[in-house]
């Protein structure tokens, strides 16, 4: 007797077991199971196998005392004849442990929730992940290299590197989109509480139970969300809130002042109690922007700022930046600089006619990667876009500096969900780097402007 099924069905089963099934494939799998009674026993065989393997290997990783065998696989899992007795022994051990626990708790009159594994309860799922995303529980336990489908208990999610994004979904359907260098904490309380330490957050909040709005806290503000779409940019000294739909109540922490921010409005809360706390329709940034590095460098910008001297212009020198992490957690370092919009205003309004120009030099020839972080006019995340320019495209001048000019039409989307530049997209972050080559890049001026026909 052989285990036989059609190649299509077997492929769908494998994709489902490895969490690689897309929606169309899931529908096809369901259709086969619904229409073909002979497929269902094969389906059960497959997923019972999947469950047994997961049970055995996950349990073996928690039972190091069982691994002291002469016949072990490279990953330390005992695969000899002890594979069968091991779980039987564990069954007897659990029965004894549960009986003892039940007796103790019966004396003190407290119910104990029976456990199968000593793992915290997962309360959110990573729907999508790009780049270096990790989770910690605040007690030192850390998980790195997270992938889509990972279920997470309460803790803190950290995104490292400019291109990192993560989408988190809670059981009630509330979705959070994090991007760029962000840190957000969430807990397991029935009333959801988020602490955004830094970064960019967009949220689509499912209607919350009466009297238990979602609470979001930053360094400078606390927001109450009943059920709405909003985005916020959290910095160490200011929080910018944009509400796409619904209403968010914002409280400025420095003085307790509170305002309601309605749909299509924005507000900024900082530590400046003299500043007006008001909700208003956000304006667009200018259509052109130039930075010549004569202005003071801001704390959240990356790179080594060098003020002008009699011999040299003001400029920024590339610094090491975490671009991501490999599977084993090793940071991936790129060399570049970043400029960000702030809570009051983004850098520039982009259009397909926009052109990026930079005056720069480097100690050795190196390709340039230019990356743009974009938000929509309403503050929601609008996508990341990038282009790689090779040295042969640079223009040189007599003073040792070079120029690169790139139309925005050459920039490609980095996130499939945001395949195109949004209309009136606002540039919130510029990252220029020489990838992992430390070429001592220095930039003396960058600009983005509309090209004239």
């Amino acid at each position: 007797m052989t285990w036989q099924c059609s190649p299509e069905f077997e492929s769908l089963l494998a994709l489902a077991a490895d969490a690689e099934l897309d929606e169309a494939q899931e529908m096809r799998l369901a259709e086969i199971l619904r229409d073909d009674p002979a497929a269902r026993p094969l389906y059960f065989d497959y997923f019972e196998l999947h469950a047994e393997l997961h049970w055995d290997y996950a349990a073996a990783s928690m039972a190091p005392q069982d691994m002291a065998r002469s016949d072990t696989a490279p990953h330390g899992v005992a695969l000899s004849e002890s594979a069968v007795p091991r779980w039987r022994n564990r069954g007897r051990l659990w029965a004894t442990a549960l009986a003892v626990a039940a007796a103790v708790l019966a004396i003190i009159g407290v119910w104990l929730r029976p456990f199968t594994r000593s793992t915290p309860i997962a309360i959110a799922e990573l729907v999508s992940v790009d780049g270096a995303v990790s989770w910690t529980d605040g007690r030192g336990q850390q998980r790195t290299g997270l992938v889509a489908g990972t279920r997470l208990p309460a803790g803190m999610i950290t995104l490292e590197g400019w291109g990192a994004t993560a989408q988190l979904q809670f059981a009630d359907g509330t979705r959070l989109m994090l991007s760029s260098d962000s840190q957000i904490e969430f807990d397991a309380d029935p009333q959801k509480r988020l602490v955004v330490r830094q970064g960019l957050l967009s949220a689509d909040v499912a209607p919350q139970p009466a009297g238990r709005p979602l609470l979001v806290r930053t360094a400078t503000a606390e927001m109450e969300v009943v059920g709405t779409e909003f985005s916020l940019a959290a910095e160490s000294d200011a929080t910018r809130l944009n509400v796409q739909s619904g209403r968010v109540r914002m409280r400025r922490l420095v003085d307790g002042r509170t305002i309601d921010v309605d749909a299509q409005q924005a507000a900024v809360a900082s530590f400046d109690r003299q500043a007006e706390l008001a909700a208003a329709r956000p304006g667009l940034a200018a259509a052109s922007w130039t930075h010549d590095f004569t202005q003071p460098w801001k704390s959240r910008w990356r790179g080594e700022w060098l003020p002008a001297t009699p011999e040299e212009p003001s400029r920024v020198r590339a610094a090491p930046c975490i671009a991501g992490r490999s599977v084993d957690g090793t940071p991936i370092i790129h060399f570049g600089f970043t400029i960000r919009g702030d809570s009051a205003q983004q850098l520039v309004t982009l259009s397909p006619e926009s052109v990026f120009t930079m005056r720069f030099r480097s100690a050795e020839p190196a390709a340039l990667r230019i990356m743009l972080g974009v938000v929509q006019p309403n503050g929601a995340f609008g996508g990341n876009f990038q282009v790689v320019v090779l040295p042969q495209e640079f223009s040189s001048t007599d003073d040792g500096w070079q120029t690169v000019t790139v139309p925005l039409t050459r920039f490609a989307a980095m996130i499939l969900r945001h395949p195109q530049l949004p209309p009136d997209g606002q540039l919130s972050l510029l990252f220029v780097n020489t990838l992992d080559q430390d070429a001592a890049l220095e930039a003396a001026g960058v600009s983005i402007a509309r090209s004239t026909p």
Partner: protein
Amino acid sequence: MTNRNLDPPSAEYLTLITKAQRSLYAFIVSMLRRTAEAEDVLQETNLVLWQKAHEFAPGTDFMAWALRIAQLQTLAHLKKVRRSRLAFDDGLVEQLAEEAIARRDMVEERRTALARCLEKLPPPQREVVAARYQPGGSVQAMAAARQTTPKALSELLRRVRKSLLECIERSLAREAHS
């Protein structure tokens, strides 16, 4: 003998729950297909089994009763997470649950056969299985670590799983004829 509502479950009842864990887990995985979610639903099922200990009549089919509870917890979980109901709607999930419960007596035999079949796998294939099924294991992570593509890893896993399933079938066939 039945337990009063406020008495802790008996040792016999605890033993039944303990023995049922793997089968309950396998059942929930076959409903959800996602092992991480299945662990959560198994915890919820155990809690209900604990709370309803006084409703179970000793001497009756515990496994069937426990699987029904697991079925209800699974359906509740699917409603909670708002997973797409277009594909696996309530009707299909309930049909799968009925048929899974009906074949529960085969699970133990298949489990024993699997243990023997794992021993017969060549070491490289056992290593692939171990890498995939250890905590945190995934096709993407394995592909990155081995510097190959997820598609190539998926194909390898497909062959290994099929090999195990065929081995299990042969083993059961031999048992039936012996």
